[in-house]
């Protein structure tokens, strides 16, 4: 077993089983939290992520296939996706190709939202480009909701991720995401996008005020 990534909340281990590469996502104990809170967080996220990943695929969004879940050790065993994270890929692509990918991302978010799924941590680190598909991973902060507010926050997180990580082209990229999102959600998309602006204005020190 090889540790391929030490994430914030989980260790990602790579293993070969029957000649195939698999990934073990192990949510490790956090000593800084009280044990009761720590276990509840790890357990609910492990359980929730498993279900969300499967449901997302049913909704038409590529995700890794889940093989096993070990609740006691808060570990998920899943398919290894060989590819490049959008975080690095987007920085390298020319404008038109980047826009194309972002639009596809928007469509996939639309599909998730149509299926009641909130990803909860939409960043370009959690999207892997592989075999012409964009795989969404890391559903640990996800949940089920059709609420416009929840969908608005979901979109806003991606916008903020663009602003902090891809500041050079954040605005165009997010516009492309919204184009794809609108294609899937139609009229409802506007309600969510408007709510996103509203939530943004609710936070601190935002110049743009939205009046209802």
């Amino acid at each position, binding site marked *: 077993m090889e540790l391929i990534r030490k994430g*914030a909340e989980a260790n990602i281990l790579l293993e070969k089983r029957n000649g195939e590469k698999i990934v073990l996502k192990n949510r490790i104990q956090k000593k800084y939290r009280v044990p009761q809170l720590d276990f509840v967080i790890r357990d609910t996220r492990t359980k929730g992520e498993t279900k969300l990943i499967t449901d997302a695929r049913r909704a038409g969004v590529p995700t890794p296939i889940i093989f096993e879940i070990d609740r006691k050790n808060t570990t998920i065993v899943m398919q290894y996706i060989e590819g490049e994270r959008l975080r690095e890929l987007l920085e390298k692509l020319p404008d038109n190709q980047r826009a194309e990918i972002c639009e596809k991302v928007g469509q996939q978010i639309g599909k998730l939202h149509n299926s009641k799924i909130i990803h909860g941590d939409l960043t370009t680190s959690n999207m892997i480009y592989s075999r012409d598909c964009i795989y969404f991973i890391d559903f640990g902060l996800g949940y089920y909701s059709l609420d416009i507010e929840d969908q608005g926050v979901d979109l806003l997180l991606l916008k903020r991720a663009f*602003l*902090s990580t891809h500041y050079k082209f954040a605005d165009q990229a997010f516009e492309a995401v919204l184009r794809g999102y609108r294609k899937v959600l139609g009229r409802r998309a506007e309600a969510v996008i408007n709510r996103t602006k509203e939530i943004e204005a609710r936070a601190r020190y935002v110049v743009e005020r939205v009046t209802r």
Partner: protein
Amino acid sequence: MSDTKLVNRLTICLGVEGTAHTIGVGIVSGSKILANVSRTYVPTKGGIHPREAARFHADKLKIVLEEALQKSNINLKQIDVIAFSIGPGLGPCLRTVATAARALAMRLEVPILGVNHCVGHVEIGRLTTGAQDPLTLYVSGGNTQVIAFESGRYRIFGETLDIAVGNCLDRFAREVGLPHPGGPQIEKLAAQANEYISLPYSVKGMDLAFSGLLTAASKEYYKTKKLPEICYSLQETAFAMLTEVTERALAHTGKSEVLLTGGVAANKRLQGMLRLMSEEHNANFLVVPFEYAMDNGTMISWLGLLMLQHGVRHTIEETAVRQRFRTDEVDVVWR
């Protein structure tokens, strides 16, 4: 005055802070802090009333200024530049301080610089702890931000989507009748608890939200009256959220230092949690000394000096206050 004199190592900058409840004056020469004096407005009841706070600032500025000059053993004529907190903050407070700063600068015939309060916190943190390129968790009554430097700007990787963590603690304290300031009282009571009560945990990516937690904690108090337990659980939950978003940002940015600043930085439990987390990621954990973690004039004068030495100049028109001045709007030309 010529620009060569201004960028001299011994340039003396006087900074005035007054974005919220603290009026402070700091004097810096080179990278040496000569004085840091402040007074804090304590509301007789309820939260900060912006106009009352502004009146307090106007009233106390003279004595704060005199004390700072006395401590640093210099006179007004030796001041080379005036800096003040231009925002973000409470409108009346900002305008009061800006007016005073303009009057000083014009009277002394020296340049004036309006500086960003949040960036001031980060820069004084770097100066006093020796941190080089930290991931900063800035937590106070008005702000909750996870900040890191990236290509010329301090970018916000995570922040509160509603109220600041310090505001959450203060308002809970008020709700249950604890004296102001609430944070230290809650910390003290939490030490007597022997049970963790489950409260809503709200992390959204690298952002967080505290208003649901505040409501739930208040409700729990009216239901059970177990004050120490609720204080403990409130701290544990809020700080675990803060530590988690800091951890996420640390993994995301790959920085090797974690810097804690702002009024809530004084909390020992929060420090402990962040220290444990930082160790796990082999990052160096640093806490800004209390005096400079709270709102203070020194951070304003230090940032003003940095800006001056890197060619930033403001006209009087450019010193209009900016209540909603974001951390990531500042061009960080000095790094």
